[in-house]
């Protein structure tokens, strides 16, 4: 027999006190009686249940019209209510169904993870691809112009029409492969030593001087430009914006955070991780295809990426860090590109045969009107090999300083080392003796007040008057110096040989001598300058910049 009378409380909605009450269940509805008599009679259909959905929670029923309420603090009341009321009381909560909550919650959580994951991996990129093309080109150009103003303000641009035409010609060749495109491609060179190139929306490509000067041929720069143009053509920036916003919204929806501040930041990171890498891969592959379509040898693009990779070796980085970086790993990129290039038909001719690339890439220098204004040197600089030294070493230095700084150095014929100059106990060349040797082998120039002699030797060296174990360089007076290459090669201390690093170190050491003796620049504590001093070791040397 179902119990039909239950003790509870009545809230009249007028005073904040609860009145002890007796609740009577009838087939049609319920009645509430308090000390003051019958207070309410409601049909089940007129009642809503607002509390009592959880174990131990008081059951609270309110008339739809609102204001009053009746409270019965017993779970069993609900069961009795549903039994007595039958069909009319079906809309009240069934405690027997509570167990469903557990599985439902787990299922919901899994579904959320699944949906969110699917959205991140497929839906958002698909939406971005669909929406991005609908952004009007004029908008993109406007934004691109703003980006250009920011990255390449007019006073920092290198403008040299004769050489600039070469770059324009490369762009035109590439653009000819996509004649239907609404974009007008323009290349701007920024006078900044960064080795980088960026594509802004709307067709502007910014190339930094550092990158330009590192390219060895027109094909190499074409490879970089093709990659950047693909960013523009595929509207990667617009896509990235859509992806970023969508991911932010997704996260905000999941966490219930309407202001979305944190969500947006996390979205930016997540977006860069996945979508940024996708875009880079796409730009690589499509860029290479563009090169082939334009009749440009893709080997240049690959060679240049190899050069860049050497500059930042990532062989040591473990696989996990690989994933966390915003660009696909250098090695992985190169392999992909090599694979694509192998399948392509190699064109016969060179790109821009009429131009001398070593001249074109000095665009910024030329724009400044030859040598940089600040570099005003005294005297003539001679590089004098002492002892056995590969001739390319010195040749490359001369080319480098000429290209980079407009400095004209001369090479003297090599001179053998004097065995007396080498300390038998230490097996090292005495720096003071080396300078004296320089004077003996080239007496006329050593006596010429306008001549600056920088000796370069492959022998390990030490300075007698100093207490150090070895020395990279030594100077006497303001015209004579000697530099030792022995300790600059990583192979000399048991590390894998690294020609790029060796060259960079040698360039810096010799540049510093040139700076001190020829340009008469002071030593500085700034790390960005090649005039940094004191240079206490290889770490300092590697940290230093290459600019004056």
């Amino acid at each position: 027999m179902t119990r039909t009378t239950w003790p509870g409380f009545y809230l009249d909605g007028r005073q904040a006190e609860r009145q002890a009450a007796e609740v009577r269940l009838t087939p049609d509805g319920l009645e509430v009686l308090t000390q003051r008599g019958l207070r309410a009679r409601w049909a089940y259909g007129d009642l809503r249940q607002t509390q009592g959905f959880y174990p131990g929670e008081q059951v609270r029923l309110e008339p739809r019209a609102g204001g009053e309420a009746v409270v019965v603090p017993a779970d069993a009341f609900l069961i009795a209510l549903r039994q007595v009321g039958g069909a009319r009381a079906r809309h009240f909560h069934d405690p027997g169904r509570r167990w469903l909550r557990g599985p439902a919650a787990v299922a919901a959580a899994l579904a959320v993870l699944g949906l969110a994951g699917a959205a991140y991996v497929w839906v958002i990129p698909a939406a971005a691809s669909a929406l991005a093309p609908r952004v009007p080109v004029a908008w993109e150009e406007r934004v691109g112009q703003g980006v250009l103003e920011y990255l390449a303000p007019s006073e920092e641009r290198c403008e040299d029409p004769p050489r600039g035409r070469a770059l324009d010609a490369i762009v035109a060749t590439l653009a000819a492969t996509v004649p239907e495109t609404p974009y007008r491609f323009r290349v701007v060179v920024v006078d900044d030593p960064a080795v980088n190139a960026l594509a802004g929306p709307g067709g502007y490509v910014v190339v930094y001087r550092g990158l330009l000067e590192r390219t060895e041929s027109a094909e190499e720069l074409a490879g970089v430009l093709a990659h950047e143009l693909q960013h523009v053509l595929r509207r990667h920036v617009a896509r990235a914006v859509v992806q970023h916003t969508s991911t932010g919204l997704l996260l905000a929806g999941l966490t219930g955070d309407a202001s979305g501040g944190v969500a947006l930041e996390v979205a930016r990171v997540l977006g860069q991780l996945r979508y940024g890498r996708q875009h880079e891969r796409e730009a690589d592959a499509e860029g290479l295809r563009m090169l082939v379509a334009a009749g440009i040898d893709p080997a240049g693009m690959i060679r240049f990426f190899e050069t860049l990779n050497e500059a930042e070796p990532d062989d040591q980085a473990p696989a996990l860090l690989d994933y966390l970086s915003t660009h696909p790993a250098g090695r992985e990129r190169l392999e992909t590109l090599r694979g694509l290039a192998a399948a392509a038909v190699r064109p016969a001719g060179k790109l821009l045969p009429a131009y001398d690339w070593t001249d074109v890439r000095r665009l910024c220098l030329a724009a400044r009107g030859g040598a940089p204004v600040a570099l005003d040197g005294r005297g003539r600089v001679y590089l004098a090999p002492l002892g056995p030294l590969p001739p390319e070493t010195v040749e490359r230095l001369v080319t480098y300083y000429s290209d980079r700084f407009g400095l004209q150095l001369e090479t003297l014929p090599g001179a053998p080392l004097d065995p007396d100059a080498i300390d038998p106990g230490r097996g090292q060349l005495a720096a003071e003796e080396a300078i004296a040797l320089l004077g003996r082998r080239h007496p006329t120039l050593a006596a010429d007040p306008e001549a600056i002699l920088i000796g370069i030797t492959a022998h390990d060296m030490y300075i007698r008057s100093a207490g150090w174990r070895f020395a990279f360089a030594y100077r006497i007076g303001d015209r004579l110096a000697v530099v030792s290459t022995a300790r600059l090669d990583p192979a000399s201390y048991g590390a894998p040989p690294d020609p790029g690093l060796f060259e960079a170190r040698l360039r810096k050491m010799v540049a510093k001598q040139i700076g001190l003796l020829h340009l008469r620049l002071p030593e500085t504590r700034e790390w960005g300058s090649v005039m940094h001093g004191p240079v206490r070791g290889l770490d300092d040397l590697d940290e230093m910049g290459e600019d004056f």
Partner: protein
Amino acid sequence: MSVASGPPQEARRPPPGPGGPAAAPGERLSHRLYFYGSGTDLFGIQAVNALGTLLTLGFFHFWGKVRGLRYVLSQTELDGDRFAYHGTGRELLSGFAKAALLLAVPFGLMNVRNVDPTFGLQIEAAILGYALIYFLFVPLAVVGARRYRLSRISWRAIRFSFRGPVRSFVRLFARDSILTLLSAGLYYPWFAVRRHAFLVSHSYFGTEPFRFDGRGQEIFPVYARLVLLGPLTVGLYWFWFQAARQRYLWAHTAIAGARFESAVTGGRLLRLRLGNALLLLGTLGLAWPWTRVRNLRFAFLNLRLRGALEAAAISQDARAAAASGEGLAGLVGTGFELGA
């Protein structure tokens, strides 16, 4: 799924005692809040909320919020009766929409340069945008959200309400912000207390107002200690500061014949937050519902209401309130937390 962790509801009538002069015979003289909810239940609710939000591309978010609030309030009990939440998803959605439209103005001003890089008065526009947000929208949001929230909460079928005029608060906020700036921050304790006084003293339960009698000069030492000891303790003193501040504010808040009392200490607060942080880190954020329950239990454990509530004398006096303030508060990011 949850186990009731408080005393059974019917057996808790206090024995007839001496009572104070205003207490009716058998009336309780010490009240506390109990939270019967569990993190597991809350997790279930939020999982379903998240799913609904994803499937409806965001719309369900508002109904989900209501589900969450309804649960939390229905699991909170005072003197044998639970609180109730009366808001609806539709109200929250329309509030959000109105707030978003409203915010478009300062937001647009702040981002003029992104839309039109050639616009000349960009900096002035941006400053105007920020000023609007700070001096107008934040106080608007605080008052609006409080008014809406309180109006949708009831206890024993009597609604709360907030009757502070927005204009007064905007003026208070602006004036005190400037004074704080001019005094290099020294005025801030007064600002904080006056803000709190406004928000508390214009809050009502039915016909009964809350009262606040705190003063800036009394709480000044608490802030001063923070400024001095904070850097010395690498910021750890923050917890003791929060505790001292809470204790002071609650001790000066009263309603009817009863006064609040907080027993929060810096050490307990630190332990609570540390535990929460570890839980969240260890579960990559999934444990958030459990930390919310921990926070509620902690707050209730350390809060008492001493004296006679005189519930019989309090009558219904509900006031209308729109949800746009709530929407604004959500977008601008001003929180609404119990006891903070």
